[in-house]
Every structure is written in structure tokens, then in C-alpha cells.
């Protein structure tokens, strides 16, 4: 019930409402611009939020994340280029509809379904967060470390094509996080005598480097590759409006997608792309018109869009209750909490309960904001985005990355870190390493180390403490089982490919 006073507080604060509306617009623009991601925008804007109050900063970035997920569908439908990985599933039916002159209809379905899914996710978060927080309070260091371990393994092995490369990415994130002074004994690690390195690698420059500068490098490379011509979509006079009768068959798909997305959102690392594709597959399997799917079925937009956006709210549950971000956006938000001196984890519910519920309320209002803006203005916004040439946009982003990295701590060394991280981020993408696993592991490493060493102290140096305590053992098993499941899945896929090649 804490959500209602929180909603009232937010609604009566005009500056907060303004921040939510602004964030909804920024997120939509960023999500709809091919090549730009909500993560990049949040990383770039992170230093700006240093000068805001915690709730203002968190709400601003959280709503950008939500709106950015939705914005990806605009580019997928109109330009046949998914603005985000998650909206690739929307593109399957969205673009054929746009080619048939029904882009407006498709975008309205995407907007309504995104709002349904996102609100479902947030309601489940509000209901479930209290329970998760109560359970989290009972966990000791061995259990918490086991959860961290499971998160590392799941994030490293489940996302991406290669388990080895995923786990290597996670380990690289851990090693980079170890640079600097040990927080317990103050011993120097990997500093090689450098004073700058003894302060550690900053989260903000690393994020800006990997997500913003890395993306600029990737876009420069993409410019040299063959470019597809953007064809103007035909305009059907009836293709803009959407009646309730037309949307009615989409409702069960949107609700199912909402549940799928919310379920996947709680699990760290899986993300909205997986949710969108599972929901699309499940929707098609249960559809009354499966033959229409892929050729321009409105239901084929509703199912993935609802799931894609429903991930957003529940992915905050492990972040807030355990301090374990489930996504890159979550990892950046964790940085915002830390920058503003708020300790995320089981005690957050006791120390900053009001802030948490106000953030949830801001998220809900953000959904309504991007829903209204998207429903009435997505087409106009898309036309505006098309007018900004990428040859102007990316150099501006390049220069913003430098000044944003510097502004975080007023440190030129941070700019150096950002440049290095940008190049490494581009290399990782180019050679199929997992950038998300790298960043999330970087963020998790310090907490994991702390709980690991506390556990060793509790057991006088014995590692059996992780096996003897049932909850800890269960989470270790979940991590290993997830990896085993993924190995099995990859082997199965390889057998199918080999079989297909043999038949050829």
C-alpha cells in the first residue's frame, strides 16, 4: 500500500513530473535512433545527475530506460532497423505492416502493448519487492556470495553465442574491478605504482567508454559497410487509426507477454530480447492465425512488445533487494545509488523505503508519459529523427562522451579510462565477447569479494561453508545447472546444424 502515498508525492511535485516527461521523450528518441541505446544515453547522462537529488536522478534515468525499451519498436516498425536488440522480434510483423501503409496502426499496437506489459511488470514488482526484501534480510554472507556466483555464471553463460567467451567477459570484468586499494586491508592491487590506479577504475568512465564511445566506433565501422536504402513507406488513409475491435485479439497476447517478461525480468542477465522472442514464439504457437504471423499480424507486435517492456520493472527486484543488477541499465542505476550514498541491498527496504516506492511511482508515471507521447506522436518523432544525419549525430556523441567522463570526478585520468574502455568495448563486440557480462561483473565484483571473504572468515578459511548451508548450496547448484543447461542447448543446436549440412 506504500505505493499510493508515493504516487501522491510524485504527482504533487511538478519538477519530478517534468523530469519524467523529459526522460520519456529522451528515452523514446534514443531508443528509436538506430545504433543508440538507452544504456548509452543513461551512461552519458549519469554525470549530469550528480547535481540532482537522488529521487530526481534515479527517476530520470529509470524512465529513460523504460522509454528507451519502447522506443526501439519505432525504429523496428518504420525503418526495419531495431533500435534495440529486444525490438528485433517486433520488426518481424511491424515492418510488413509499415510496408502495407499501416505503420501508424502498428505503432499504436506497440504502444498499447508496451504500456500493458510495463505496467504489469511494475505492479508485480511493487507486490513482490517487499517479500523478496524480507527474505533477503535473512541471508548471510555465504548465501549472498552464492547468489553472486550464480549471477556471474548465468550472466556469463546464458547471454551470447559462446559460453567460454561469456565467462571470459565476466572474469575480465572482475579483474578490472580489482584494480585499486583492497577495501578491507587497503593493500594495493594491480596499481603498478600508479597513484591514479590506486583509486580504482571508475564506474562512470567505464560505462561511458563501453556503451557510448564503443558504439561510436561501431557506427563508424558500420558506415563503411554496405548501406541499405531507406524506402518511404506507402500511406494508407486507414492505416493510422486503431479501433478497439482491431486491438481485441491482441489483448491475450499482451497479457501473456507481460507475464513472460515479468518472469524473465527477475532472473539476472536474461534481458528483454530473450523475453520478446519467447513471447513471440509462444504467441504464434497459440495464435488463431499463425499463418499471418511474420506477414503483418497485429498480434505479432503485441506479444513481443508487452514482454520486452514487462522485463523493466521486475529486473529492479534483484538490484534493489540484493544489490545484484540484472541488466546493464540496472548496473548503471546501481552506480547512481552508490554515487548518492544509498546502500542498495536487503537493508534498503528499511533505510530508504520511501525512496524505493517513489521510484516505482515515477516508473509507473513514466509508462503513462511514454504511452501518451508514443500514441499521439511516435510518427512525428520518427520523422524528426530521420532528419538528423548520423554524420552529425555521432561526432557530437563522441565529444559528449569525453566531457561527460571528465565531469564525473573532474579527472582527466577518467577520460583516459573511458577511451581505453571504448576501444576494448568495440573489440569485445567485434570478436563476439559479451559486453553486458563484462560490465555487470565489474559492478558485482566488489560485493561478491566482500561476501566471499566474510564467509571465509566465518568458517576459519574453509570453503565448505558454501556447501553446508542449504540456501548457498542451492544457488551454487542453480548457477552450475544453468551453465549445464546452456551447454546442452548449444550442443543440440550444433547437432541440428550438422544434420542440416549433412542433408545438403
Amino acid at each position, binding site marked *: 500500500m506504500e505505493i499510493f502515498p508515493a504516487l501522491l508525492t510524485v504527482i504533487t511535485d511538478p519538477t519530478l513530473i517534468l523530469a519524467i516527461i523529459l526522460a520519456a521523450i529522451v528515452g523514446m528518441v534514443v531508443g528509436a535512433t538506430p545504433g543508440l541505446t538507452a544504456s548509452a544515453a543513461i551512461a552519458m547522462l549519469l554525470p549530469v545527475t550528480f*547535481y540532482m537529488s537522488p529521487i530526481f536522478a534515479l527517476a530520470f534515468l529509470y524512465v529513460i530506460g523504460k522509454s528507451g525499451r519502447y522506443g526501439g519498436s519505432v525504429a523496428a516498425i518504420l525503418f526495419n532497423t531495431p533500435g534495440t536488440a529486444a525490438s528485433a522480434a517486433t520488426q518481424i510483423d511491424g515492418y510488413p505492416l509499415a510496408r502495407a501503409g499501416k505503420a501508424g496502426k502498428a505503432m499504436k499496437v506497440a504502444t498499447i502493448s508496451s504500456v500493458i506489459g510495463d505496467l504489469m511488470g511494475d505492479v508485480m514488482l511493487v507486490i513482490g519487492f517487499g517479500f523478496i526484501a524480507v527474505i533477503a534480510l535473512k541471508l548471510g554472507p555465504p548465501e549472498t556470495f552464492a547468489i553472486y556466483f550464480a549471477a556471474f555464471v548465468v550472466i556469463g553463460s546464458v547471454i551470447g553465442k559462446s559460453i567460454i*567467451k561469456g565467462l571470459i567477459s565476466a572474469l575480465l570484468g572482475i579483474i578490472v574491478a580489482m584494480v585499486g586499494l583492497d577495501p578491507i586491508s587497503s593493500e594495493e592491487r594491480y596499481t603498478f605504482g600508479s597513484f591514479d590506479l590506486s583509486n580504482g577504475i571508475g564506474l562512470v568512465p567505464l560505462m561511458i567508454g563501453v556503451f557510448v564511445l564503443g558504439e561510436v566506433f561501431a557506427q563508424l565501422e558500420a558506415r*563503411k559497410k554496405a548501406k541499405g536504402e531507406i524506402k518511404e513507406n506507402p500511406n494508407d488513409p486507414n492505416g493510422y487509426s486503431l479501433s478497439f475491435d482491431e486491438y481485441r485479439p491482441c489483448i491475450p497476447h499482451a497479457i501473456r507477454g507481460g507475464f513472460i517478461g515479468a518472469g524473465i525480468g527477475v532472473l539476472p542477465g536474461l534481458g528483454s530480447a530473450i523475453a520478446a522472442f519467447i513471447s513471440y514464439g509462444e504467441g504464434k504457437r497459440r495464435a488463431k492465425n499463425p499463418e499471418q504471423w511474420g506477414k503483418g499480424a497485429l498480434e505479432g507486435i503485441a506479444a513481443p512488445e508487452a514482454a520486452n517492456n514487462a522485463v523493466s520493472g521486475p529486473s529492479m527486484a534483484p538490484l534493489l533487494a540484493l544489490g545484484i543488477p540484472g541488466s546493464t541499465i540496472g548496473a548503471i542505476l546501481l552506480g547512481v545509488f552508490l554515487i548518492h550514498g544509498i546502500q542498495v541491498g536487503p537493508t534498503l527496504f528499511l533505510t530508504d523505503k520511501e525512496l524505493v516506492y517513489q521510484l516505482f511511482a515515477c516508473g509507473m508515471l513514466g509508462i503513462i508519459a511514454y504511452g501518451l507521447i508514443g500514441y499521439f506522436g511516435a510518427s512525428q518523432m520518427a520523422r524528426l529523427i530521420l532528419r538528423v544525419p548520423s554524420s552529425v549525430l555521432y561526432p557530437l556523441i563522441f565529444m559528449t562522451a569525453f566531457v561527460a567522463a571528465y565531469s564525473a570526478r573532474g579527472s582527466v585520468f577518467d577520460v583516459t579510462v573511458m577511451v581505453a574502455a571504448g576501444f576494448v568495448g568495440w573489440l569485445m563486440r567485434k570478436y563476439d565477447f559479451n559486453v553486458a557480462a563484462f560490465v555487470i561483473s565489474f559492478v558485482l565484483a566488489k560485493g561478491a569479494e566482500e561476501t566471499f571473504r566474510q564467509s571465509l572468515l566465518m568458517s576459519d578459511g574453509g570453503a565448505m561453508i558454501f556447501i553446508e548451508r542449504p540456501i548457498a548450496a542451492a544457488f551454487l547448484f542453480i548457477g552450475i545447472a544453468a551453465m549445464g543447461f546452456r551447454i546442452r542447448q548449444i550442443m543440440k543446436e550444433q547437432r541440428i546444424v550438422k544434420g542440416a549440412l549433412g542433408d545438403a
Partner: protein
Amino acid sequence: MRDVIEGIVLALFSLIAIWGAWQVPGASPGDTWAGIVPFAASVALLVLSSLLIVGGLRMADHGSAEIKNGSPGTLDILILFAIALLYQQSFRWFGYLLPTAIVAPAVFYLFGVRNWIGLAASIVLCPLIFYLIFFQLLGVFPPYGEVFDLMDWIRS
């Protein structure tokens, strides 16, 4: 073969990381060794790098088709990376304004802008706009150029 090269590079990195972790002094009584997590992560990285090398060698033995990954944009990226390195270093030497005024048209040109008026405008507009937003509006203290600072010169 690509996996083998990636594996070798990562194995070398992990060996440096193991050596770095080994340099961490031992724990005092009743405490845990500060190098335990970096050491464990580095060893795990070495193991996974070895697996990557073995997998790559196996694929090479089976004569798997290798997809050439040469990209026409690599040279441009190396140029942009060099600009980025020089740009960040020149903050220390020349502060914010002068390096930005020089880098802005170079980056626009690299991204395909060929309008000379636009490029000339970027020399003034980019440093000015970023300076106003970050160093005036947000109150961030700008980097001071040790060799020459344009802002100092303008003020004087």
C-alpha cells in the same frame, strides 16, 4: 585460427594478472588474503583461455570454414582511436577549449561531413556549447592546460 589468437592474447593477459595478484602482500593473522579473488579470477581466465585455444586448434584440424573478418572500417576506427588518445592527453596540456576546437572538425570529417562552412562552424560552436553546458551551467571545474590554456588567454 581466430579463436587461437584470441586465446593466446587472453592467456598472456591472465599470466600478467596472476603475476599482479601474486604481488599482493600476504594476509595478517585473522584476515583473508587481499589477492585471493584477483588470483582466483586470473587462474580461471587462464583455464578458459586455454579452452579457447584448444577449441580453435580443434576447429583448425577439422578444416572448418573460417569467415574472414576483415572490415573496411578498421582503418577509420584506428584513426578515430588515435584522435581519441590525443584528445584526452591534450586536456592535460591545453585544457578543454583548444583541443575540442581542433578535434571537432576532424571527427565530423571522419564521419563524412564535407560542408566546409559546417566544419568551420564546429570549430567555434562545439567547444562553446559544451563549455557552456558542462563548465558553466553544471559548474564542473574545467581541466587546466599545463602548457597553454585558451580560456586563461581569453580571460586575460
